[in-house]
């Protein structure tokens, strides 16, 4: 409870800073796609997108100040199962020599 009220004592500055960073990240994504970075184009785009998603989850969805640790467990297990889905599928389709 005290943790909760502390995190909301002066949140406006944080909110506007996160908002500005998200807009800068969007512009970065747009212009980075115009550069020829070879195979790294996709990596750069995904790194920027993941950074933006983390900013939204931690500050806008208040996961950073969450008093309930179970929430963090839910988020970690979501990411685990999503990466299981993507990694195992790509490990299969990515290594099929005959296709």
């Amino acid at each position, binding site marked *: 409870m005290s943790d909760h009220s502390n995190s909301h004592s002066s949140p406006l500055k944080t*909110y506007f800073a996160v908002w500005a960073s998200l807009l800068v990240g*969007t512009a970065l994504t*747009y212009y980075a796609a115009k550069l020829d970075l070879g195979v790294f*184009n996709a990596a750069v785009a995904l790194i920027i997108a993941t950074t933006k998603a983390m900013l*939204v989850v931690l500050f806008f*969805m208040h996961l950073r100040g969450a008093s309930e640790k179970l*929430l963090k467990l839910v*988020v970690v297990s979501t990411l685990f199962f999503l990466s299981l889905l993507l990694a195992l599928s790509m490990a299969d389709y990515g290594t099929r020599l005959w296709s």
Partner: protein
Amino acid sequence: MSDSQILVESQGGSHGPHNPALLHHFSTEQQQKDSADLGMWIFLATEVMFFGGLFCAYLIYRRWYYGDFAAASSSIDAALGGTNTAVLICSSLTVVLAIWAAQTARRNLLIVMLILTMLFGCVFLGIKAKEYKDKFDEHHVPGASFSFEHQPIPGHPGEYANPVHAEIFFALYFVMTGLHALHMIIGLGLFSWLLWGAWKGRFTPEYHTPLEIGGLYWHFVDIVWIYLFPLLYLIDRH
């Protein structure tokens, strides 16, 4: 836990004997709020897996038909997609400001922020409709009238995209952005209900859980778009 219980009880004492929003099967307001939060995060976990299957299909086909995907992606207006990303980010800001307004008992600001959020949501859907209309005019919608002949593959002069493979890109494009747009429409419905509650003065610094839960949903939909934008609009743009 006992600390927070005492705190809640002492707060309850200053605002009256019992907060009417506290349901009888919860012992404290904090426990009731934590339960609602946990339920919403678990729902969002199922949503991540729901969209995850589509992202997985996208990754597999993109790997197989990279050139065709790049050609199809280049036919979409990236400036519209970028504008929509900015619009959604602004709507996420107005959502957190709405919650802050409820926490600090600013009813008028809360109502203004909820209306702004819904306006941004409508602007997003309007731009999306314009984008879909362009695709219909260009016959880029999968189906009987689909046509994607003689479209050059970026970075490979003299080579043209295979229309069958490009059609797969557009199928994924319409399903993923369409499902996302459906979530936006549901979000607008949720926020109309929140606006009604805010108008009635239902939300107080002690009780505004529906706003926080609705906000979690809105931010999740924003995050899905943050990934959709570079993956669908920005393949091989240089």
